[in-house]
């Protein structure tokens, strides 16, 4: 079902392919058993695929301003829109001790007032060019993502530059953001998913900076405009920033606009510390978070994996797709289709600058908690002990490259991908290199990735559920440590 909107303004959810994939999954999840487990013959009349068509390689004009700002311009003529993404190093991983998560509050408030514009003026100036601006903090960076009509490109860059250089953190805007953050935290804390993510991150990462999932109540309470200004000065500096502009733009005019808007930007003080390498896998450790009365348990199983710059990264990505990262993957087939333990198993693979994180998540009924863990371990070990079939490999590769192509239809996503690559230490050429690199993955490479990062004995396990009900099942797999929610 879907509500009507206006065709020409059909953008209520800005349907990105990621959303689409999710929607598709939801549509299917609403229909348990839609996929028959028994093998049936494929239709003989099935049309074959046409010849592969490569993603056209975009031209990326690279330059660096005298103040150190790295600029990547990607002209995509013909469609009257521009997207500008400014990424600055320093996400929640550089939040000071006692202020873990303040990076998120920085992202919430940085575009709520500058020395030149009030929050309202920023909103109205964006409207006047058909623009949008969103700011997000990740573990490794704060990212301003913006877009506007192509005719407003110079004014958009001026707005982004204003936010990057002259944010003022007005007291009333900071108070409002703190109130909203507290409200959202309260809503999140009532979900087992959030409790599981928090426990999992601290179990996997210990004191490593990647353990931060969200600012606590105390950190939100402690946040002041002065602290935000200090964090802003540490992170928003041209020598640790990247500006990506994609769209219907003239290279020369855009460069002039960038020089004018960003040329006077200066950074001061010591550069941000490098984030230490992601810790190694800790071996099987099992944690239980009690959620009394829960009829379901939420399982998370996973460990750190390779960095995007490591050899074997793409092998691991394809391996994860075969294991649980896509519809029809092994774990989904096993515990959803064949055994019916859960509707929603999911194998995630997140990439950070200092490593990746593999994580399997499933919500299951209390009474099949142990049985589900058994199958998760079995499928993880199977990745190490056997090679994928030719079909599995081909399907996983097509899935990865297909979604990548879909995502790249949207110019804002291209800008976002380029910025994420930069944050993760990858050069701009990686944009065009993704599909060939996935295509080059072999069965032996997938098996190797299986041995390196999938073995079940190397995975951290978090179970959020009614401890009394599920402890006996969980303890079958090793000693259980209790964690406070």
């Amino acid at each position, binding site marked *: 079902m879907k509500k*009507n*909107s*206006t*065709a020409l303004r059909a953008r209520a959810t800005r349907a990105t392919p990621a959303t689409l994939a999710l929607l598709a999954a939801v549509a299917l999840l609403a229909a348990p058993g*839609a996929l028959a487990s028994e093998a049936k013959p494929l239709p003989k009349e099935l049309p074959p*695929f046409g010849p592969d068509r490569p993603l056209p390689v975009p031209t990326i004009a690279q330059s660096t301003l005298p103040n150190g700002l790295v600029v990547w311009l990607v002209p995509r003529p013909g469609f009257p829109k521009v997207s500008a993404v400014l990424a600055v190093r320093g996400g929640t991983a550089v939040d000071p001790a006692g202020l873990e998560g303040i990076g998120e509050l920085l992202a919430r408030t940085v575009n709520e007032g500058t020395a030149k514009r009030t929050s309202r003026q920023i909103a109205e100036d964006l409207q006047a060019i058909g623009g949008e601006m969103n700011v997000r903090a990740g573990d490794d960076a704060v990212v301003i993502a913006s877009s506007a009509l192509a005719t407003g490109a110079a004014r958009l860059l001026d707005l982004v530059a204003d936010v990057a250089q002259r944010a003022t953190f007005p007291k009333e805007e900071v108070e409002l953001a703190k109130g909203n953050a507290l409200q959202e935290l309260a809503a999140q804390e009532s979900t087992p998913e959030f409790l599981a993510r928090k426990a999992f991150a601290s179990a996997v990462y210990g004191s490593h900076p990647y353990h931060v999932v969200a600012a606590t109540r105390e950190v939100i309470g402690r946040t002041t405009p002065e602290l935000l200004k200090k964090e802003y000065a540490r992170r928003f500096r041209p020598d640790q920033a990247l500006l990506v502009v994609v769209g219907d733009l003239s290279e020369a005019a855009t460069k002039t606009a960038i020089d004018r808007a960003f040329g006077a930007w200066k950074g001061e003080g010591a550069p941000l510390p490098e984030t230490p390498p992601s810790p190694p896998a800790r071996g099987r450790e099992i944690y239980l978070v009690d959620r009394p009365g829960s009829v379901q348990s939420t399982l998370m199983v996973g460990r750190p994996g390779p960095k995007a710059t490591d050899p074997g990264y793409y092998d691991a990505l394809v391996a994860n797709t075969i294991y649980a990262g896509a*519809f029809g993957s092994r774990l989904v087939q096993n515990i959803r289709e064949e055994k019916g333990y859960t509707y929603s198993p999911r194998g995630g693979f997140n990439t950070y600058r200092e490593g990746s994180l593999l994580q399997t998540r499933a919500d299951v009924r209390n009474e099949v908690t142990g049985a589900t863990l058994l199958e998760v371990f079995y499928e993880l070990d199977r990745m190490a002990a056997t090679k994928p079939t030719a079909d599995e490999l081909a399907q996983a590769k097509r899935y990865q490259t*297909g979604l990548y192509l879909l995502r790249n239809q949207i110019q804002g996503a291209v800008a976002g991908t380029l910025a994420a690559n930069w944050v993760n230490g990858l050069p701009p050429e990686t944009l065009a290199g993704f599909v060939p690199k996935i295509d080059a993955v072999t069965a032996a490479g997938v098996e190797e990735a299986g041995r390196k990062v999938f073995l079940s004995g190397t995975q951290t396990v978090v179970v959020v559920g009614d401890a009394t009900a599920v402890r006996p099942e969980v303890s079958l797999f090793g000693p259980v440590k209790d964690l406070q929610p």
Partner: protein
Amino acid sequence: MASAPIPAGLEVPFVTERLRNGLAVVVAPLPGVPVVTVDVTYDVGSRVEEPGRTGLAHLFEHLMFEGSERVPKGEHARLVTSAGGVFNGTTTEERTNYFATLPAEALELGLFLEADRMRALDLTQENLDRQREAVKEEKRLRIDNQPYGLSFQEADSLAYESFAYRHPVIGSMEDLDAASLADARDFHRRHYSPANALLCVTGDVEPAAALQAVREQFGELPARERPAPVEVVEPPPAGERRLSVTDPHALFPALHLDVKAPPRRHGDLLALAYVEKVLGGGESGRLWRRLVKDEERALSLSISVDERRGPSLLRVFAIARDGVGLDLLEREIREDLARVAGDGLSPREMERARRMLEADAVRALQTSQSVAFVLSEYGLYDGEPGLFRDDLGRLLSLTAAEVRDAAARLLRPEAYSVVEVRPGAEGTAGAEA
């Protein structure tokens, strides 16, 4: 109302063809990324449903994923996903659509899957029973157990006279239970014929080759009669309507204020888009700013135009902050609507709204899938996909005087329907005329 040229880059060239069996085909080549969208829209939505038979159109959307003669159950999802594509289906009051976006080399696969289920859907009692339960679960999950979920249905029922729009797309539990296999077969025969559908292919395709592929997959489907069109016509609004309901899932009181408006493509409805932008504007409009941000009276406020082939609605929905009365919230909203009807919008507001509407159109035309949605709607409802350009030109050239006059015609209390939602045990607290 004058029309105007549309911004360069938004023309979207396309070709059309009607197959002998009546299937309308639109192909739009979009340069750039090698992906393709295959989108089939059937002219069947909940508006065609009769009392006692509600929910069938949406239930059918589920049944269409249960397999067809040459595509075993479950294979549709597996084939699209393992080709690197995504898919879905949606049902509204107006139509049901099915779409997949795939790497361009999988165009023929996408066409094959749609042709097979248009021709020979595998309708069995088992599939019907399973999907009926899935829909009931969806209703419980997404409507019955969501805060304010049912109140949107109450608001529709209050605003409309005709059964076509008074009943919810998801249908009622009783009607879903009563749907028989014979009903489902009859539904497919009547509504899922080539002549009642439009196939749109957008993306990295060569039009002649794509049309040839379409003819090969759909050309042999037998022609069937197209059902008689359903017109939804309502008497002019004759007085404000009010309803008060309770919602056990709501934490805070909320208010729906809906304004009855003309059908899609009507000039006055286009003008309401400016009102929506200036007042709501995706969290930066003046009413949003006043109620949510500056005065902190509302937790949220959304304004949207629910555009339909029959009478449309301007919808305002606001959730009150703790301790703020609904009467106060309602007064503020009504005053601002009255101000627009009286004074119109300022030149600067008009200009900002115009740029936002232009940017919305740009965003609505930026992917093969969103282009397919636009062309399919105009192609199916109006028989001419290119009319979207006319509407965009008309929309962007509206003047402040035209918007003010349209607002004065539409934003009148006798066209309002107001639903007050209060936290509390289930049930409707009472209705007033």
